[in-house]
């Protein structure tokens, strides 16, 4: 029995699901299955009814309605499988009308009321397979109210649209009410469909938007976590570097003082000599030198962290920029170590006095000039130029020298960074540029590397003259 039943059931399921090609479970799928099921029902229902009709001896022309069902029901399935769902649903409605009509004749009553209610039920069911509640309720209300109204006019005997009296013109009523009802149903189906299409389009939009937003958010998250990792790595790198930088002068302090101690222990009145004492003194001096280096490193580190937490430590006053730069150059040149280069200074400013923090500005200029000296060839010229750029006052320092390798350009402002273009013998803490770039920002400007070209490395510091009004009053605590 099952062997016979299963293939039939499978074919029915096959027929009922023809035309289903969307995503499983969508509103579209359910409508397709619903329409196909009704079409199948139409086909199967016709035979028992037709048999009964023939048995009762009712004339064949009245049975034509049933034969029409036999045509419209397969058509519904056919159109559905071609994805022409709107036509398919119209076919189902026509089939329903014919069934109602035939039923009226069969039962020998006025059929109008019966088939109208039948159509109303079909439409309501169609409405209810829709996904969205507003569409379901809207379509249901339209179907019920429209058809109930029509039914009322039918029972008064006057056709609502053509105005024909159904008693006087039975044939015209037959034709025109069929047309009118078809039109009415088409309109309702159309409204319902356009609603659902709008809704589906919105849903699709929402889906696409959601996808885009999810992608954007994921990208943001990835970026944020990468940044956090990078920041964390920078921090650990900073701590590792700090440890390394602090241990180096400590080695000098401990080492040289230990050496001095050893030498002193070996010293006896017999082997005493001036040279030996001088040697010990030198070792103590070197230990002190390293201690001073350690101290300045600690001070700079403190300064770095202080400026990270307090951005507004600026104490401005009036000063002459040209004189300040000149005195920095003189100081630098005064040092024995720095006499191998020529420094040329030009000022293109119309004015020389400025209101800003001269201590910070001096530190920046000193750092740039000392760096330029350290990193340039013997006998080359360093060019210092003071000029105006809009509301900023800039000072550029250009030196001919080692240049900065391209892959290091990004890092030169990082703490403890020292260019690999030179060896570490140039000295320094590796914090100078980091600090100076902070100072320049505090003075309303910036410190930039303009050209890392090996021929001419150019650093430029720009500051904005501060507003005197803001600083003339003591700030409220």
């Amino acid at each position, binding site marked *: 029995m099952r062997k016979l039943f299963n293939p039939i059931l499978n074919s029915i399921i096959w027929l009922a699901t023809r035309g289903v090609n969307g995503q499983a479970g969508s509103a579209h799928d359910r409508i397709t299955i619903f329409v196909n099921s009704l079409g199948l029902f139409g086909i199967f229902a016709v035979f028992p009814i037709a048999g009964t009709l023939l048995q009762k001896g009712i004339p064949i022309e009245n049975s034509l309605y049933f034969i029409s069902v036999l045509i419209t029901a397969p058509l519904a399935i056919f159109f559905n499988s071609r994805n022409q769902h709107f036509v398919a649903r119209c076919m189902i409605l026509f089939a329903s009308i014919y069934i109602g009509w035939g039923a009226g004749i069969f039962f020998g009553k006025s059929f109008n009321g019966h088939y109208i209610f039948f159509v109303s039920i079909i439409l309501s069911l169609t409405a209810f397979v829709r996904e969205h509640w507003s569409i379901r309720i809207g379509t249901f209300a339209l179907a019920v109210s429209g058809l109930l109204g029509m039914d009322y006019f039918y029972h008064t005997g006057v056709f609502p649209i053509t105005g024909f009296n159904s008693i006087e013109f039975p044939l015209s009523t037959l034709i025109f009410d069929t047309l009118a009802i078809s039109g009415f149903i088409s309109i309702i189906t159309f409204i319902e469909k356009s609603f659902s299409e709008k809704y589906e389009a919105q849903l699709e939009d929402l889906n696409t938007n959601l996808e885009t937003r999810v992608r954007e958010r994921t990208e943001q998250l990835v970026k944020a976590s990468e940044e956090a990792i990078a920041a964390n790595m920078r921090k650990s790198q900073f701590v590792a570097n700090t440890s390394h930088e602090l241990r180096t002068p400590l080695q000098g302090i401990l*080492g040289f003082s230990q*050496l001095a101690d050893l030498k002193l222990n070996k010293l006896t009145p017999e082997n005493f000599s001036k040279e030996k004492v001088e040697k010990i003194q030198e070792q103590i001096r070197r230990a002190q030198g390293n201690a001073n280096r350690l101290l300045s490193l600690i001070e700079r580190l403190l300064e770095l962290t202080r400026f990270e937490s307090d951005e507004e430590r600026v104490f401005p006053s009036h000063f002459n920029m040209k004189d300040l730069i000149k005195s920095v150059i003189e100081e630098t040149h005064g040092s024995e170590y720095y006499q191998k280069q020529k420094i040329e200074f030009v000022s293109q400013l119309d004015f020389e006095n400025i209101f800003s923090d001269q201590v910070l500005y001096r530190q920046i200029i000193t750092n740039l000039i000392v760096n330029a000296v350290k990193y340039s060839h013997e006998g080359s010229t360093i060019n210092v130029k003071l000029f105006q750029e809009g509301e900023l006052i800039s000072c550029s320092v250009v030196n001919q020298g080692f240049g900065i390798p391209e892959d290091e350009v990004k890092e030169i402002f990082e703490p403890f960074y020292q260019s690999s273009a030179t060896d*570490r013998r140039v000295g320094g803490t590796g914090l100078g540029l980091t600090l100076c770039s902070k100072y320049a920002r505090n003075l309303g400007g910036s410190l930039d590397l303009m050209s890392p070209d090996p021929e001419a490395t150019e650093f430029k510091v720009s500051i904005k003259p501060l507003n005197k009004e803001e600083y003339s009053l003591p700030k409220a605590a």
Partner: protein
Amino acid sequence: MPKLMIVDDETSNLDLFRELFVDEEDMTIECYASGNDALDAFDNSSPDVMILDVMMPGKTGFEVCEEIKAKAKGSKTKVIIVTGMAGDEVEQKAREVGCDSFYLKPVDMMELYNEVMEAQ
């Protein structure tokens, strides 16, 4: 007396370590401020013991140690790594490249002295 080679980019450290042995009269001491220089000189001088820094411009101390240990002469050289880089992974890396001793700066001068003198 062992032949000593000192490699450190801090000239202050070169001076310091050299001074530790300066009283040993027949001891040869060579100082280099970069790993590359030390490697270039290695075959000629073939030292018995080497005090080696890690963080240097050019080749790091790890790379220098690895290259030296790969040489026929170098396998006999005692390599003492002295670095300011702290951390377990630094020491582990030092062992991996085949160094004989590892010291974190600041190193005790007497300890370093004995370590060098033991190599013969």
